């Protein structure tokens, strides 16, 4: 009898088409969005947008947001929010600036220390959320104001009244770690490609795109690692389980507290990484750095298929969500449209994504 049931497929289940299978992937919406946005700009924007330098142009802000977005996505899958990451960018930028300029630390000490401070603050967020049982939305909203304020006060304290700390580029000049966190990578490839005539170059023979901005590499690497961890490691399974139902996960032996606190630490460190990269790039830091980034990161995660209720989503989705973001912010400058349509677009995109995700979730769980 057992063999019989084994062999017989359930007659009530229709075989799935490829389309339905694809529909079940959380990142589908974001990939579709990238395609649509690309088509839109192909039609409306100046053709320079999709040259190599144009692509680098919109990928750079996409990467800066994406590093935050992927971390936010992991945290959302784990069932929590962090609204303090935007302010964390400002705060970590301030801390890093002070370390490098005022204290004169080399990067090899300043960067780990900045990341460690961010991680400690992230852990504090997590601890408060777990101890009090309050929604992380509220706890980190407090963090949003506290860190923004602290960044402002700190900057004034260390600069003697200014809200901007300058001189960072000079301070890190020549540091052996600087090329990993700033500027362009793969310059030699670009020069080689320019010589071969594959990429555009100036008359002098210098390629128009000097290299790949490092944040793009960080962004791609982070997306790849996050996706791997999420889908192919026990830790990934714990993250889904924790966000899906923390109690059920705990009863099954998942270290829920450790997972959540680690995720809060990760988002905070991602914010610090973005701070370090952008601060070195700009050569200065100010209190407005990372303003509103917490919401943009969450929107990127939601466009990427994360459910607001946790337990479902993808890192690669957030990757594409951030690219959509970058394309629209920068892309509008290539068109005749008013750039401020950006905000309208943002809101519309978020609403669409949330509605779309809800439909997808019903399909996945078979809810009727």
């Amino acid at each position, binding site marked *: 009898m057992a063999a019989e049931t084994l062999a017989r497929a359930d007659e009530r289940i229709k075989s799935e088409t490829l389309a339905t299978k694809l529909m079940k992937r959380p990142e589908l919406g974001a990939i579709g969005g990238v395609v649509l946005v690309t088509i839109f700009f192909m039609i409306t924007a100046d053709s320079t947008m999709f040259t190599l330098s144009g692509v680098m142009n919109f990928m750079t802000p996409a990467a800066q947001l994406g590093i935050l977005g992927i971390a936010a996505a992991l945290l959302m899958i784990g069932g929590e929010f962090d609204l303090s990451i935007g302010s964390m960018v400002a705060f970590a930028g301030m801390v890093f600036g002070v370390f490098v300029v005022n204290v004169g630390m080399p990067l090899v000490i300043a960067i780990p220390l900045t990341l460690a401070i961010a991680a400690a603050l992230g852990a504090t967020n997590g601890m408060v959320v777990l101890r009090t049982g309050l929604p992380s939305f509220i706890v980190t909203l407090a963090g949003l104001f506290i860190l923004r304020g602290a960044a402002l006060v700190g900057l004034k304290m260390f600069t003697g009244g200014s809200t901007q700390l300058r001189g960072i580029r000079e301070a890190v000049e020549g540091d052996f770690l600087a090329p990993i966190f700033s500027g362009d990578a793969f310059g030699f490839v670009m020069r080689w490609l320019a010589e071969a005539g594959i990429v555009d170059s100036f008359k002098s023979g210098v390629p128009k795109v000097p290299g790949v901005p490092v944040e793009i590499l960080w962004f791609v690497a982070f997306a790849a690692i996050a996706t791997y961890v999420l889908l192919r*490691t026990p830790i990934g*399974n*714990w993250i889904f*389980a924790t966000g899906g139902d923390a109690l*059920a*996960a705990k*009863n099954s*032996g998942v270290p829920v507290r450790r997972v959540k606190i680690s995720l809060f630490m990760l988002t905070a460190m991602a914010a610090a990484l973005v701070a370090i990269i952008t601060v070195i790039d700009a050569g200065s830091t100010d209190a407005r750095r990372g303003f509103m980034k917490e919401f943009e990161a969450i929107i990127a995660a939601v466009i990427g298929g994360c459910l607001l209720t946790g*337990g479902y989503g993808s890192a690669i989705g957030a990757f594409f969500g951030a690219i959509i973001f970058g394309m629209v912010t920068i892309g509008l400058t290539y068109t005749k449209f008013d750039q401020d349509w950006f905000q309208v677009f943002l809101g519309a995109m978020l609403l669409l994504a949330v509605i779309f995700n809800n439909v997808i979730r019903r399909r996945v769980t078979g809810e009727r």
Partner: protein
Amino acid sequence: MSTPIIHMENIKKHYGNVIALNGVTFDVRAGECHCLLGDNGAGKSTFIKTMSGVHKPTEGSITFEGKPLSFGSPRDAMEAGIATVFQDLAMIPLMSVTRNFFMGREPTKGKGLFKRFDLDTANDITMAEMRKMGINLRGPDQAVGTLSGGERQTVAIARAVYFGAKVLILDEPTSALGVRQTANVLATINRVRSQGVGVVFISHNVRHAMAVGDRFTVLNRGQTLGTATRGEIDAAQLQDLMAGGQEMAELEGSLGGTI
């Protein structure tokens, strides 16, 4: 018959001045289904939690495989081989059957930094274990949310058995199920029992208990009213014991014996 896997003698549990359990004696042998019956508030939940290591008893002794034992945490109990399937099942609807099956106990392959979740093995095991329980999954990546209540219950039971449960505590596994699904779950219990697992079946439904039980213990107001083996007792007597005798008889009379 064989010696019990777990024996709980005169267990008492007090919460402040509330006496939740006042002398419960209960044991389970390998390959039997011991039903614990009791009405709401009889102390069933407290007792299960004591057995599965969530609470420590205020008084009384627990003997596990012949040795005195005191569980410090649910984890200890789980490792010793006592698995509990609570009513909420500890299942996550959005996750696939495989991911649920191995939640917290993922098989890995590779070393060091490349240690990863061995999904292929996990998928194969899940499909095989579910087939043994008579459930054909669409695929191992099917989300648990798409399964029926009875199927979910079966996944939870299969998971417990796969991870080496010697004693399987089922907390009202049939309470929220339809007729057909109930039959499936009861069949699953029967299958598990025949593999030599001791099943503790908690219920307030006498008919379901009678269908699979080898022995029956009734819990009332925090005390056990004795244990009967199959054939010694009939459904009506169990029902009366659960309700504390008298009132039930009267009630039943007025309802025409339909409960």
